[in-house]
């Protein structure tokens, strides 16, 4: 039986921008975009404090809210994803079917529609605070994606690992908990990082249910001053700096891991 090689490519991604680590040149695409955005964010307020300085002073609590939504949602999505992934590989038909239906249904409905559904449609029966609705919608949606990542991660662990654990007298559940899942976490770290970035971007959708995130704050500023171009330029640049920063982090993490863990 051939051992599966160490660098597992579980290939679940929605295409967040990941810098190509092979591109080491000083003027890599990542560097130009990242530092270009930072230079613009510094230069614009310097040369044109009104309105850029005002905008930059206006949006930071939106950045904070964006982070809140993103971090809370990713945490819940991870929990939902773990159980969904386990459900997807379960031998118990009912559990397996429920997990699969959840993934299929959620992946088939646009996130924006899900958000409307939880906030407005269900809001007819139960009034949920908009921040809660936002986090629920994001975590339920990304929980399905995470479920697929966990499933792929668990299935990428060589079959011999489960066999060795069973042969030692562990039950399937013990083997999953002590042998398979700890290894899965290591493997899925990069794709989870990608999901984090995708979620950070998608979190801008919550501005539609009036959560005061980065985009919403930009819009508030613009509608007061009619400086749409300037406000949305700053908002876009801030999103760009954030996602580029995190995608670099994920890339570095990925590279470290493939270096350190060859087994």
């Amino acid at each position, binding site marked *: *039986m051939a*051992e599966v090689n160490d660098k597992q490519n579980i290939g679940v991604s929605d295409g967040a921008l990941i810098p190509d680590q092979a591109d080491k040149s000083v003027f890599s695409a990542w560097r130009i975009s990242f530092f270009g955005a930072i230079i613009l964010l510094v230069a614009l307020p310097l040369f044109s404090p009104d309105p850029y300085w005002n905008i930059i002073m206006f949006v930071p609590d939106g950045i904070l809210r964006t982070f809140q939504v993103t971090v809370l949602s990713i945490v819940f999505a991870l929990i939902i994803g773990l159980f969904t992934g386990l459900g997807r590989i379960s031998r118990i038909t009912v559990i397996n079917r429920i997990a699969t239906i959840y993934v299929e249904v959620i992946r088939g409905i646009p996130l924006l529609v899900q958000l409307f559904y939880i906030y407005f449609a269900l809001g007819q029966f139960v009034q949920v605070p908009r921040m809660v609705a936002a986090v629920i919608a994001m975590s339920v949606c990304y929980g399905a994606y995470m479920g697929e990542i966990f499933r792929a991660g668990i299935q990428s662990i*060589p079959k*011999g*690992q489960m*066999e*060795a*654990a*069973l*042969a*030692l*007298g*562990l*039950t399937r559940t*013990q083997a999953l908990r*002590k*042998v398979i899942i*700890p*290894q899965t976490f*290591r493997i899925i770290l990069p794709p989870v990082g990608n999901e984090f970035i995708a979620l950070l971007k998608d979190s801008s959708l919550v501005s539609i249910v009036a959560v005061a995130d980065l985009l919403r704050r930009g819009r508030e500023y613009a509608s007061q001053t009619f400086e749409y171009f300037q406000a949305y330029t700053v908002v876009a640049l801030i999103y760009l700096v954030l996602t580029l920063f995190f995608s670099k982090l994920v890339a570095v993490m990925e590279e470290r891991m493939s270096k350190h*863990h*060859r*087994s």
Partner: protein
Amino acid sequence: MNGTNGSQIPRVRIEDATKTFGEVQALRGVSLEVQAGEVILVIGPSGSGKSTMLRSVNRLERLTSGRIWIDADEVSNSASDLRRIREEVGMVFQSFNLFPHLTAAGNIMLAPMTVKGASRTEARADAERLLARVGLADKADAYPGQLSGGQQQRVAIARALAMNPKVMLFDEPTSALDPEMIKEVLDVMLDLAREGMTMMVVSHEMGFARAAADRVVFMDEGEIVETGSPDQVFDTPSHDRTKRFLEHIL
């Protein structure tokens, strides 16, 4: 390596075992008895059912029909306490299958702590003793990725021994190793055989067979074709199929 003792029940008894994978018949009525303390070497071409037979003994494969006992416990019976049986049967795999996220000691400690409820201190002391026994006393805190193939396989043997098994199964334990590492693993296996461990070994290591095996079993196409002492089977095989196979591997 005490011989057979007719009055005792065998340590392992396989009775008319068959196994079908879809269209393929991996085992076609295999019967074999292994006495306590006996070392059996199983040889045969690939696809002859050697591994399937071995893996049926701790029920990593379920038989299509037939029965297997470890002492008085029936393994092939679905009501049997599978977990207890697996505690009594240690297994060593071709690809080592060490847990890469745990150190050598951690690999050895996992089952005693999880299955037998051993304390960390006990398990650690045991792991260090076992690592010393396989000549790796200084590698307790190394991760599998930092060990050579031969070292990994010796840790895997120590890991199986930590459960104090009554029988050890070896499924081509040296096939994935570079030539210079085979001896260190065989030496550990030789020591085990001398200490009276009951062993079933799927391997083509003739040197090991002559030094340690009580019997050699030749399998082909899901059947046991021939059984005998190593000298008998290797030097004067009585079946044509055995002869042909030996010509290929010598």
